[in-house]
């Protein structure tokens, strides 16, 4: 039974990863979770300087989901290297550094620092960040910027380079194609969906930044559709994220075409979700006579010739 997956020059023990921002730096949950059973850990987004993040309240629950606006609070890349990486290295799992930045230059510098670190196995680039030079518009909604970021970063690393796409665009496939063209090894789909909630008694937003990112089971159908659009647009692997709680959810993403999956919000409920899912997927494959989890990938049977836009719904 082969569970592992190779991306560029890195072999992951299995195809189940934990999503950025939902597992800290891997050192918060040692009692509860045996991290070595995970395919890999996407770190909390790292920026050059430490970031305090947004004011409270940063989270609120919604129907089968949650909104967050943590504001990419993080300890900064230097402290990550000095304080967190040594511990992380001890686990038999892959560490993918997730990078956030407010300029193309910052993305490059953070990546260069991390690329020199042996314990960092690859990169996931969070492009859902405000481009300070352009008045705060998100990099991730501008295909020219995503192209440029990918190109610049590709020149600076030989480790796996994954671009994490935002779902808040009309055609995510355009962005995936741009990443592929510039040499990205994979794309992660999806980051959170823009959402909002209101406290009707105070007449204030329920999170301090007014809008935030929606995640959890509520967004699973959206994530699956975005993964479907993406896998039909590019040949590089797509990493599926969004609302995965059970192994059945993960199998849905594999069937649609994800090569790996990430567990986000579910970690808050059960930090060992990733491990439970890894076992569940394996068992499902064995029961169905597959000797490789890869045999599930992109096996969706559909007779729709699709253009993923609103059709006659």
């Amino acid at each position, binding site marked *: 039974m082969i569970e592992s997956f190779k991306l560029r020059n890195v072999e992951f023990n299995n195809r189940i990863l934990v999503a950025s921002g*939902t597992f800290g730096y891997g050192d918060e949950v040692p*009692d509860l979770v045996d991290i070595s059973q995970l395919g890999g850990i996407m770190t909390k987004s790292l920026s050059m300087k430490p970031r305090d993040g947004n004011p*409270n309240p940063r*989270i609120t*629950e919604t129907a089968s989901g*949650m909104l967050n606006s943590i504001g990419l609070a993080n300890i900064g890349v230097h402290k990550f290297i000095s304080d967190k990486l040594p511990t992380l290295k001890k686990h038999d799992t892959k560490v993918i550094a997730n990078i956030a930045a407010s300029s193309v230059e910052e993305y490059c510098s953070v990546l260069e620092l991390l690329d020199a670190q042996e314990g960092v196995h690859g990169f996931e680039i969070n492009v859902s960040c405000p481009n300070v030079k352009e008045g705060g518009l998100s990099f991730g909604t501008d295909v020219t910027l995503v192209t440029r970021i990918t190109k610049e970063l590709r020149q600076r690393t030989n480790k796996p380079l994954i671009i994490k796409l935002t779902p808040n665009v009309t055609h995510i496939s355009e962005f995936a194609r741009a990443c592929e063209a510039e040499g990205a090894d994979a794309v992660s789909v999806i980051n959170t969906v823009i959402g909002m909630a209101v406290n009707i008694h105070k007449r204030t937003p329920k999170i301090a930044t007014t809008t935030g990112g929606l995640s959890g089971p509520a967004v699973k159908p959206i994530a699956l559709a975005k993964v479907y659009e993406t896998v039909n647009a590019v040949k590089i692997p797509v990493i599926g994220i969004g609302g995965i709680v059970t192994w059945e959810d993960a199998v849905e993403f594999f069937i649609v075409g994800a090569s790996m999956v990430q567990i986000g919000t579910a970690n*808050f409920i059960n930090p060992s979700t990733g491990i439970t899912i890894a076992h569940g997927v394996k068992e499902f494959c064995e029961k169905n006579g597959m000797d490789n989890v890869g045999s599930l990938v992109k096996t969706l049977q559909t007779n729709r010739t699709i253009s993923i836009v609103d059709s006659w719904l």
Partner: protein
Amino acid sequence: MKQELVQIHSFECLTAEILELTFISEYLSTHAQPGQFVNIRVDNNFPLLRRPFSIFNIDENKVSIVFNVIGTGTKVLARKRKGDTIDVVGPCGNDFLSLADDSFDTAVFVGGGIGIAPFPFLTKRYPAGKEIITYVGGRQKELIVEKGLKNAKIATDDGSMGFHGTVLELIKNDFSTNAPKNPRFFLCGPNRMMKVVAEFAKEIGATCYASLECDMACGIGLCQGCNIEMVTGDKKYRLVCKEGTIFETQSVKFS
């Protein structure tokens, strides 16, 4: 810290509105300290997130929490029965005992409504030789729990039980006539109540600790969702679930 499926041992109505839920856990009963909380998944699908509850009491292998039905989570919890299992993570957060040094004589516990939750367990484990006074405030008598409290003095907004007024007024009254010796304050309840009591403590030069409440997605330091703004120290924010829930009140900015 562990994640366990525990069995419900009993339900008890402490008041017309407040329930005590007792479950069995060898692990928690031996590891939890007063002021810590447990994070409960009340049901499999809905609501999505766990709900944090202070540990109210521990008796042999039995652990209890108290709650009143406010919204989705507590509604589901109230419908459980003896013998049902619930999914519990804990113990979470820091505790009162390891925080407080010994340089005081009287421990003044102040609980607002369901905020008395941590005090019975704290009372039980409190080092001998300290006086304890407990102030309990609430809107009306249905929200006042006395079980397990020592020297409880009660204030209700509507006067339906004890002193007619806020818990701060009651404390001020008492302190003006018969101030306890070298007091230290321990608060739990609504932010507004804690803020004003903390100010009073500061005025009289007493150290004051508060167990803070805020919405939590994980309760164990993973999500960074539970930040509280600090006024002292090098960090702008700290995490209530992990670096708290108990903070020295002069170090934090009450919102």
